[in-house]
């Protein structure tokens, strides 16, 4: 455990120049939100939500760039000196992933708060349950389905490429993996689509229509029925579980390769 926490601390030392500006960029997005001054409340809310979607995309790209930087940590022996013994490949991978995932969670929870803020600015007052779903459940779900697998995939890609650095031709493993991944992802997504909704959905924002109706008036009856059906279905749990399992598998493979190559 001491090794792991030391490695996470080293990850922070190495990456704070990335993680700090990433968190600081939220101030920029908050400033950008305040600059949207269109008269129509709906349009204003839409543009602000679009800005936050941009923040999510750019933040994800920055996290991927941060975790993907390969350094010659083991070759210059700093860990052996710090930890008195070489840490295992799995510990290395888990430490790097934990740091990036932690920064990611903090970032996306803050984005959840910004979403809550733009809703408040539009006069939509969520109750406590909806607020927690916005700032905790949605970041967790989104990260589990999209961000965590991408981070684990990036780690595996970098470790896989570095396994061939002695033999040269470093571009072949990278290109083969990048070209093969969409095909493998297609099979995976087809399988996920087949099993989706076999488990009960994760119901979120059950009280949101009330808040929206309080602000904008009652919905059209047909629209109310449709919204009710969507909320009753909830979020499918299967993609989240499958992608979390995929993340764990990618990390295990990356850790194994690191163990074989670097340890």
């Amino acid at each position: 455990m001491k090794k792991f926490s030391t490695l996470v601390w080293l990850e922070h030392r190495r990456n704070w120049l990335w993680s700090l500006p990433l968190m600081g960029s939220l101030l920029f997005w908050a400033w950008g939100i305040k600059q949207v001054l269109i008269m129509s409340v709906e349009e204003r809310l839409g543009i602000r939500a679009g800005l936050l979607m941009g923040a999510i995309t750019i933040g994800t790209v920055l996290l991927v760039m941060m975790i993907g930087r390969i350094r010659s940590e083991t070759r210059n022996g700093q860990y052996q000196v710090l930890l008195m013994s070489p840490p295992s490949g799995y510990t290395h991978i888990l430490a790097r992933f934990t740091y990036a995932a932690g920064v990611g969670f903090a970032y996306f929870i803050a984005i959840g708060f910004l979403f809550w803020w733009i809703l408040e600015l539009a006069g939509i007052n969520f109750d406590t349950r909806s607020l927690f779903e916005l700032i905790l459940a949605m970041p967790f779900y989104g990260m589990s389905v999209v961000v965590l697998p991408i981070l684990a995939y990036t780690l595996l890609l970098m470790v896989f490429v570095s396994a061939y650095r002695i033999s040269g031709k470093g571009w072949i493993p990278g290109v083969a993996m990048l070209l093969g991944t969409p095909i493998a992802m297609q099979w995976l997504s087809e399988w996920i689509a087949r099993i989706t909704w076999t488990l009960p959905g994760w119901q979120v924002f059950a009280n949101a229509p009330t808040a929206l109706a309080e602000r904008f008036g009652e919905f059209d009856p047909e629209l109310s029925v449709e919204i009710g059906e969507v909320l009753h279905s909830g979020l499918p749990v299967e993609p989240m579980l499958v992608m979390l399992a995929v993340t764990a598998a990618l990390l295990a493979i990356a850790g194994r390769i690191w163990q074989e190559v670097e340890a």
Partner: protein
Amino acid sequence: MTQAFLIVVRILAVALFAYWGYRLWTGTQSWTSRVLGLFFSAVLIWQATLGTWMITG
């Protein structure tokens, strides 16, 4: 594009991906990397031969 041209393209693609598989197998001491490299080569060969993303004429 004629059928013959597409067959030649597929044969060339299979040859390239098979060569990549060979390089990925022999280019490292890590068995996990070899298996992973072979997996991606096999996926690409499968796609070049039986997949649907290439224009079938």
